[in-house]
């Protein structure tokens, strides 16, 4: 759960993303990166983050040292040699360029996927024929309780039926969605986390289940996490914070 504490640099998905941003911002030719300039920009960014006392993911620092090493390599005298095709192959920047290009490719693919988001295709649940269906005994250990709990968790992600005009279904009074919002609100309000059992204020059966499933789901969504200092001690639920 320690990733909960790792603050991500705003708007950047890692050092490669930050570098691509700088390259775009300064209209730099990706195949001919002015290492000294970009290193300076990059370091400025890192310092700004440090100044804001943000916890910088170690990958950013690794990249910083890579850039600094590149910079000093580029300053070596053999740079005087005229750039030829052969020289290009030995360009110390080559590896970084490849990584940037590779990353860029998938970043663009992600954007294309994003454009498709919401164009949902629907599949229906399987059909069963009720008449004289043979009783099918099940085999030992075909499934685990884990599967069952997983199904409970998935229940929430499922599309809910929009109550049609003439439906006979009685809507649940305590929806898990609602309970997730409640739990999240409570947890958000308490900085030091909240005792797990304090979430179960209303001891009615459906509410207990709804709350339990809500916490489970929130954990899966990485919106809250739980901590237990020692075995059998009280559990605390904490808010993870922005995604």
């Amino acid at each position, binding site marked *: 759960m320690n990733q909960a504490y790792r603050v991500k640099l705003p708007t950047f998905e890692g050092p490669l993303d930050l570098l691509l941003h700088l390259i775009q911002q300064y209209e730099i030719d990706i195949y001919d990166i002015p290492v000294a300039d970009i290193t300076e920009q990059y370091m400025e960014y890192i310092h700004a983050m440090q100044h804001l006392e943000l916890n910088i993911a170690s990958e950013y620092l690794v990249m910083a040292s890579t850039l600094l090493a590149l910079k000093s390599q580029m300053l070596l005298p053999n740079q005087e040699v005229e750039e030829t095709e052969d020289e290009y192959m030995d360009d110390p920047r080559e590896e970084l360029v490849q990584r940037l290009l590779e990353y860029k490719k998938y970043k663009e693919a992600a954007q294309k996927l994003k454009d498709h988001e919401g164009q949902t295709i629907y599949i*229906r649940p*399987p059909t069963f024929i*009720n008449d004289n269906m043979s009783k099918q005994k099940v085999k030992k250990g075909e499934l685990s309780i884990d599967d069952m709990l997983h199904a*409970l968790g998935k229940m929430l992600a499922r599309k809910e039926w929009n109550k049609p005009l*003439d439906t006979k279904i009685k809507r649940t009074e305590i929806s898990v969605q609602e309970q997730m919002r409640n739990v999240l609100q409570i947890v958000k309000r308490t900085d030091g986390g909240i005792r797990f059992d304090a979430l179960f204020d209303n001891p009615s059966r459906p509410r207990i289940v709804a709350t339990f499933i809500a916490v489970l789901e929130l954990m899966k969504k990485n919106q809250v996490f739980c901590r*237990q200092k020692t075995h059998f001690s009280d559990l605390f639920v904490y808010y993870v914070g922005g995604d």
Partner: protein
Amino acid sequence: MGISHLKSVIEGLLFASGDQGVTVKQLAHILNIDKTTVKHILDKLKFDYENNDRGITIIESHDIFYLATKPEHHHYIKQMIDTPHATKLSQAALETLAIIAYLQPITRTEIEEIRGIKSDRPVQTLLSRSLIEERGRKETVGKPILFGTSKDFLTYFGLTSLEELPPLSENIEETDVREEADLFFANFQKLNNNN
């Protein structure tokens, strides 16, 4: 929107409506056309489905329309359900089973309240697979059937007794709520650690 486009959208809507089905009124509303046109298109679809290279059909019950398989194909469908690949429990059945396991004895309506969706099919499946069984009737209006897990349920999950289950199950009345919550979580953690 031309008739063929309307027909395609209505087929899609019928398909997606699943077990719940859809009414003429709903279709008219979504497509922003009058009910007579909807009925006309449903008739056209029905006619298409009568062709013997089609495997689905429209059924109508209490003014709700559903897509369904053709009765003459039930033999094949039964065979598919009986083949190993399909014996895996569906998401709906698993959810329902989890709820029954935790809260037994429980009525179908109570299950539906938690799932927020009609659950007669999954209950039916679980019954037919002998994972759950009837446990008498609840002493309330309509005396609804109560369901609980069966012996086969234990076998299926490789358990020797219900006590091995992450129990929100039988002693709910006696267990104090706090204790129960702790138990829930302890189990959930255990499961998580196993991953």
